[in-house]
């Protein structure tokens, strides 16, 4: 049995951006970790389908845990992204008021931003606003300039964390759903669809299912309310229509519909905010898409003339509380990291650092913090140099000159590299997130057949990924007892 009998220091349930960040931070401090996820890849839940913004936290509640961890995490991730090759662009954001009422709220938002340590946030004139965003619909009454807001690749980020965690000795168990947890004197037994995981500590980073995991550990403190957000991605030809992230004035319930550039050179419009009962329902809706298009055309009228490249929906894990729900219980050897809602990507490294410190304080043995050398991930952004543009790289390896996906300009070399990486994709969606292949305007009209064949070739070769755990007999707590 691979690892089933070995007792890990910590089992982290949920391999989203928060879970992978915690695994990385702990593994780098010599903690033996098992990272568990029900899906076939890391970062497939809330992590993969959001607005892909690296927030400064200017609009968080001052003094809240979210405010603190977001500021810290955002700074850490800015720096980490540079070293790990995660695409980030510091586009800045403009928060635009369209009504007198919204304009009257701008000073309060300014004040909040300054309380949150964003000293560079300032009110700007509509003249400056339109000079910077000439395609913006006429009629704006005022705006706040938030220079620190950035856009980031939400796919490379958890992959970088997980890759670094694996290199530091963490184990990753995918396609592994937790069915029950039994807590003993010195260890937990986490029952999963692929066997039992023994560990001293459990970290619950299960996002949309964190309340279910919490109940398995005897808690009943909170309930996750899935909040669905639909998003529309416009063609790269729309990218010149804006320079910054265009934010609306938030309401009590949501941050509202924004228009933002993406690090892949597209334009993103969304999200909607709809509370739904089903934790797996990421379907888009006719009403949601119509509402988004209406909002988008009001903000940037020229969007109406551009093609839509992709449409998707993600779920954020909302709770009754506004703030993060992070609790470390030394007696039960349990850390609950929940209610991260929509800022997990930006705060991930701050959350991981905080959780590690709290675990250390509660008795988990941590080694000193070495200055880690993060893995250099394949660069899939639009602002920097991609392999197809790199004459030296093509000269050294012609596979980087053979473009397979023309919309996104992904080469055979990059697909080969992704399939051979320490954390290879399990399916086409995984390959998309690692290379951008199939994500473009034609959605596979040209390359769908070729890419499917390349992936099938790997699967036929039977190359088991190094981290794969052979499926074991299904065990449930009841079966174990019997």
């Amino acid at each position, binding site marked *: 049995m691979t690892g089933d009998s070995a007792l890990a220091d910590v089992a982290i349930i949920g391999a989203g951006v928060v879970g992978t960040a915690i695994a990385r931070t702990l593994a780098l401090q010599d903690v033996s970790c098992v990272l568990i996820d029900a899906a076939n890849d890391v970062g497939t839940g809330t992590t993969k389908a959001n607005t892909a913004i690296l927030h400064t936290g200017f609009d968080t509640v001052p003094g809240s845990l979210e405010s603190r961890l977001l500021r810290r995490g955002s700074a850490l991730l800015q720096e980490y992204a540079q070293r790990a090759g995660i695409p980030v662009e510091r586009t800045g954001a403009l928060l635009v008021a369209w009504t007198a009422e919204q304009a009257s709220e701008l000073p309060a938002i300014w004040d909040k931003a300054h309380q949150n340590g964003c000293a560079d946030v300032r009110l700007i004139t509509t003249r400056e606003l339109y000079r910077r965003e000439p395609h913006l619909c006429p009629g704006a009454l005022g705006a706040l300039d938030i220079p620190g807001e950035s856009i980031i690749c939400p796919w490379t980020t958890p992959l970088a964390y997980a890759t670094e965690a694996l290199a530091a000795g963490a184990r990753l168990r995918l396609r592994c759903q937790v069915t029950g947890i039994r807590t003993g004197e010195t260890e937990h037994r986490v029952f999963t669809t692929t066997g039992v995981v023994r560990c001293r500590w459990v970290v619950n980073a299960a996002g949309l299912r964190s309340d279910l995991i919490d109940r398995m550990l005897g808690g009943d403190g909170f309930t996750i309310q899935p909040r669905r957000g639909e998003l529309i991605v416009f063609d790269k030809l729309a990218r010149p229509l804006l320079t910054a992230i265009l934010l609306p004035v938030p309401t009590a319930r949501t941050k509202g519909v924004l228009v933002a550039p993406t690090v892949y050179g597209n334009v993103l419009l969304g999200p909607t905010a709809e509370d739904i009962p089903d934790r797996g329902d990421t379907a888009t809706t006719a009403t949601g898409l119509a509402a988004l298009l209406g909002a988008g055309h009001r903000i940037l009228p020229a969007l109406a003339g551009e093609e839509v490249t992709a449409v998707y929906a993600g779920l954020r894990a909302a709770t009754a509380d506004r703030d993060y729900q992070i609790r470390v219980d030394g007696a039960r050897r349990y850390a609950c990291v929940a209610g991260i809602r929509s800022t997990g990507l930006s705060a991930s490294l701050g959350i991981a650092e905080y959780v590690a410190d709290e675990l250390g304080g509660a008795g988990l043995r941590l080694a000193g913090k070495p200055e880690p050398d993060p893995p250099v991930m394949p660069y899939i952004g639009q602002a920097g140099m991609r392999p197809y543009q790199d004459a030296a790289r093509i000269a050294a390896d012609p596979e980087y000159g053979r473009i397979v996906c023309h919309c996104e300009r992904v080469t055979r070399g990059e697909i080969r590299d992704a399939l051979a990486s320490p954390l290879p994709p399990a399916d086409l969606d995984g390959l998309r997130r690692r290379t951008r292949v199939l994500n473009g305007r034609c*959605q596979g009209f040209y390359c769908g057949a070729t890419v499917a064949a390349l992936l099938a070739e790997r699967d036929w070769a039977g190359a088991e990924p190094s981290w794969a755990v052979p499926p074991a007999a299904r065990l449930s707590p009841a079966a174990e007892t019997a």
Partner: protein
Amino acid sequence: MKTDVLVIGAGPAGLAAAVELRRLGAGSVLVVDRDDQAGGIPRHSAHTGFGARDLRRVLSGPAYARRYAAAAADAGAEIRLGTAVTGWDGPRRVTLTSAAGVESVEAAAVLLATGCRERPRPARLVPGDRPPGIMTTGELQRRVYLAGERLAGGALVVGAEHVSFSAMVTLAHAGADVIALVTHLPRHTSYAAFALAAGWRWHVPVWASSVVRRVEGRKQLAGVELADTRTGETRFVPCDLLVFTGDWIPDHELARAAGLEMDPGTRGPVIDTALETSEPGVFAAGNLVHAAETADIAALGGRHAAQGIAAELQRGPAPEPLRLPVMVEPPLLWISPNAVRVGGPVPPRGRFVLRSRVFRRARIEVRQEGRRLATSNPYRIVPDRPLPLGAAWISRADPGGGPVIVRIR
């Protein structure tokens, strides 16, 4: 490097242009295509009916593609495959990327023949789940005819134009059961013979006035919710494959990167009757300027553009060619070419081509500043089908006057 003519796209339009350019002695011709084989879309259109108007014979798609690729090579054009244009760096200077590296090419004239594609599901904003098993005809035919994939289960085809019937044949050939062709229009827009054959040979009905409202199935496709546009009634249709056909859009990214003036109707570059764009020395032909016509029409357009290029290379570019815009009124969608080159040639085959959004039996009228230039005989107007308009009225247009308006009378 330098070349006299750079042709971008080795489909019917690009290859036919290359043959003609060499025949006319227009100098060195470099044809580039991002694909690994020349021939374009006909390569994976494994049915007959290609070549009637340009080659005066009827061939299968792959045979037609091979014939043009061989003809262009025989004529002395250099054809570079697996070579993508990844940058537009100057008026007639581009960056090429291939396994051989990154290279800059400058040409005296450029022909854009980048073709068109079908709008995929997201561009059509069809809501619901996003399982695999949903594709365009282009992807389907590449999977089946180029990669040799087999299919199983029930397939629903969205669209009922020529290409939709082609998708149906491909699906049946690959082993799928085609359930129906679905169109939002009141009836199909292909030839009656195709629809009859679909019913008789494959027992596939056309469900008219129907739209896909929603896709269901999280891990795999379960089916779609279909709505009747007349009654608003919906029903669930189980299926394992969903193919979005037609609804063409030109591959105009390069044209836009080049900063060419674009036509809001065709969504391709604005072209005059010589097929020259707003940028001197840059021409456009094929389905980039009329998405989508049959391969032979695209090839004849390529040949026409080649003649314009050859003439221009001989006498130098016209300093400020006088162009008269040609526009359509709804329910007409577009006209191609969309400008008259004053004193220039008539359009390819001596006619303009139009598209309508509606079925109609009516005359087409050409007007300029309230003055009627021409009225056609009554047509049977069918959406998705080419509507030809003679070009004799060009001589009656006032070169200094306002735009020419084409409309249904």
